[in-house]
């Protein structure tokens, strides 16, 4: 069965028509418990959405004429979930693993809007995701923040105005502790945490020099000096110059406390900031240092012991870092884990005693702050994008199921619609399969050779879950 045909069916059936289904610019959600994150919970509240933005929030709003009304009586509305570490919507591998510094590659170049995991994560309430390069290199590829606008082309996925990022990686993955190079390929430097530091320092030493050349050139150009030959462009160093200039965020994959402190030292030496420490499973050991640096921590809820550097991971990490003043988020690093980030956030109430609102911040406002998009996302406030998720229960309960997910005021996931369309999708699939089978039979007949059967086409099995060493995502 042709994958492209499936994709078309899926796009058509599973919500590929959000815009046309709702031509009105005004949407009114009513009767819900609204978890605003910034100013408390509103019982029996309403949200007015105009032109994709939140226009009003309150308990006594009136339905404007012509508004599309979403009745959410007895349900819960919260800001759309922001996943600060994701690898969905990427065409092919997320790792350019050959060089130790792969800053010249950009995940934004390989966005795949037909990845069904966009839809699946939408169904888990995710509206925004930080799409990262893998962790094979001390300095990895460039990253992009997207909205999960299922059905839209790749060009419409990026979160408008969100600062781009770059992936750094420390510890076992960049030093290749848990897997070797392919047969016949020599090992790649670095193989120690010492080497990881050296690679980063060397790269920034070059980037500084490169920046100086350009600054010098621009100054002389501005002064009208002639003739002038511009420095040779270096696509590896350009993103690092942007880091030095504060125009690109560093998202650093890390586990152990020592390597985190190492990167903070290097950042001080070269005068750049680390925007987020990703995974940061030992962040709780040095929460004060992380907080003082201004970096955020984006961690797992309770993963541990899958590799040596995760042996001291504790489920109290998020709460303990938050208690010490770090802006903390809980991320997925997995298309599957992203489907229940609300549950993962809830664990920080049990492990470390976060309040319900602070637990919800881990997947809404805090990742928005970490990605520099908190003026547009992360809470239910007037003026922000209408990126919302509606649950049938308190989202911090294991019993909560996403009913609708909205982005820019459009319903991109609707559970009722999904359930209603299943038999239709199954019927259409069967019809296509029958057609293909018939076609294959008529095609075969004239030249059928005895004893040789056609090989049924088979989709490769998907691994059961993402793996800590990045077997599927190649990333963690």
């Amino acid at each position, binding site marked *: 069965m042709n994958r492209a045909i499936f994709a078309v069916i899926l796009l058509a059936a599973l919500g590929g028509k959000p815009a046309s289904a709702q031509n009105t610019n005004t949407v009114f959600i009513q009767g819900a418990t609204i978890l605003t994150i910034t100013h408390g919970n509103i019982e029996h509240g309403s949200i007015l959405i105009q032109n994709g933005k939140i226009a009003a929030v309150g308990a006594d709003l009136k339905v404007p004429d012509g508004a599309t009304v979403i009745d959410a009586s007895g349900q819960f509305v919260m800001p759309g979930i922001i996943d600060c570490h994701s690898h969905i919507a990427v065409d092919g*591998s997320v790792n350019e693993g050959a060089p130790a510094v792969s800053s010249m590659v950009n995940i934004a170049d390989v966005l795949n809007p037909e990845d069904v995991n966009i839809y699946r994560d939408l169904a888990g309430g995710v509206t925004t995701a930080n799409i990262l390069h893998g962790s094979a290199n001390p300095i990895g590829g460039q990253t992009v923040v997207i909205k999960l606008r299922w059905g839209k082309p790749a060009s419409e996925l990026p979160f408008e105005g969100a600062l781009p990022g770059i992936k750094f990686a420390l510890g076992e993955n960049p030093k290749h502790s848990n897997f070797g190079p392919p*047969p016949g390929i020599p090992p790649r430097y670095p193989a120690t945490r010492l080497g990881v530091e050296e690679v980063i320092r060397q790269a920034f030493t070059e980037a500084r020099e490169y920046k100086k050349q350009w600054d010098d050139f621009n100054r002389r150009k501005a002064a009208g000096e002639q003739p002038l030959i511009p420095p040779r462009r270096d696509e590896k160093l350009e993103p690092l110059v942007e880091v030095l200039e504060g125009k690109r965020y560093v998202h650093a994959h890390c586990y152990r406390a020592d390597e985190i402190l190492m990167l903070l030292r290097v950042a001080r030496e070269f005068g750049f900031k680390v925007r987020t420490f990703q995974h940061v499973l030992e962040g709780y050991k040095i929460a004060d240092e992380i907080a003082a640096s201004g970096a955020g921590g984006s961690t797992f809820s309770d993963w541990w*012991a*899958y*590799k040596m550097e995760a042996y001291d991971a504790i489920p109290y990490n998020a709460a303990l870092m938050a208690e010490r003043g770090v802006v903390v988020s809980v991320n997925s690093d997995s298309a599957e884990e992203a489907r229940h980030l609300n*549950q993962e956030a809830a664990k920080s109430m049990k492990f470390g005693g976060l309040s319900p609102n602070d637990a919800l911040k881990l997947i809404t406002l805090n990742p928005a702050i970490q990605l520099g998009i908190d003026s547009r996302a992360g809470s239910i406030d007037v003026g922000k994008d209408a990126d919302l998720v509606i649950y049938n229960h308190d989202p911090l309960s*294991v*019993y909560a199921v996403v009913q609708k997910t909205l982005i820019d005021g459009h319903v991109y996931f609707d559970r009722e619609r999904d359930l209603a369309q299943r038999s239709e999708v199954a019927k259409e699939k069967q019809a296509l399969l029958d057609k293909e089978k018939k076609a294959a039979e008529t095609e075969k007949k004239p030249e059928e050779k005895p004893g040789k059967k056609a090989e049924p086409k088979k989709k490769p099995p998907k691994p059961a879950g993402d793996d800590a060493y990045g077997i599927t995502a190649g990333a963690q």
Partner: protein
Amino acid sequence: MNIPAAVTNVRTARALGFIALFLLAGTLLQPLRAQSAPGVYAITNVKIYTLAGPPIEKGVVIIRGGKIAAVGANVEIPEDAQIVQAGGMELYPGLFDPVTQVGLTEVGAVSATVDTNELGSFNPELVAATAVNPASAHIRVTRASGITHVVAVPGIVSFDAQGGGTIAGQASAFHLAGWTIDEMQIRRSIALLINWPSIQTRTFDFSIFDFKEKPYADAKKEYDEAVNELSDLLDRARHYAQAKEKGSPALYERDLKLEALVPVVDGKLPVLVVAGKARDIRSAVEFCAKQSLKMILADGAEAWKVKDLLKEKNIPVILGPSEQLPYEEDDPYDKPMSQAGELNAAGIPIAFSSFGTSFSRRLSQYAGTAVAYGLPHDEALKAVTLNAAKMFGLGDQLGTIEPGKTANLIVTDGDPLELRTHVRMLFINGQLTSTDNRHLDLYNEYRKRPVSAP
């Protein structure tokens, strides 16, 4: 002996005029770090979910000699009992994770700490219990989440380890407390683990860290060979059993592999068959029916696609984690969460499992999620306690709160399937057992770090 704060003996309690010693939030109990001789306990004033009938409000459970001695609303408290006041708390049977690698794997990526995957394709004589490390940090972490006993299996693909072999060995059931595996053991050999061969045209190759493709015809041939070999081995085990029974040992040298298979072909030892895809489940069910094996399906990611067959052949299912994506792009997004409800409604016995080590503590999360997507709550509770016990023939020992059963019990501050519920006390094999663990220790240690101002 270190007596917990809320535990006192009946004379002291009477002397105090039965002053209720309520459990404090963030319990201050300091129970035994490990196990000693079974004591006598009276857990009082607790809401008891026996799972053998309706809940008992403000009931009493008496534990003696490792067993549940009495359960009810009006139970006389023996003179020698230590009283555990559990006012406002709830009592459940201890949770059971029936497919794990707890004790066999410490750190997934560090092979020196992993004893799950032996070389070779057919290893029926291997027994998981042999390598269970009672000092593993996973044991304490796991039991703190309310799991009091597990089945550890060799050779299974999971988050924590890559499995190997068609017959990976025998699974072992044990309590998550004890000084040695002998003390912990429930049953050394509880099932034989078969990784059902799958027609794999695309496999992940660690040596190149990428996927490798192979033609369908080659994959099918490998599959057929594996199944034939399995079939052949079972036939030989039957002959071996016959020869041994009829006293003609001359025909066979003692063969440890065949010997291990005798209880399997006799239908005494269940086979835990790991299969996820519908096609593989179908093949496995048909194979086991033909071979008259006592089959338990493990994983069953696409069991919903073959539920008629599972019902017809009466195959119980130990589901793998609901936290996985559907195998097919066009399958409904929520099937991994909703299929437990469907299977249960079809009358197929189900149990939840973690298929892992570090993820074992997510067991109740899987069950709770299944409730969110349609499984009745009481069925979900049974699916983490009683059902798997029954599948393994342990239903008379574990899984409910009834007199005569092993006293594996948990005291919680609420619904054990909810994410924020704490397990306040654990009784394993009739002993009050500590909920301290590596994670709590690290938390307490680093929380006390003086504020550092760099």
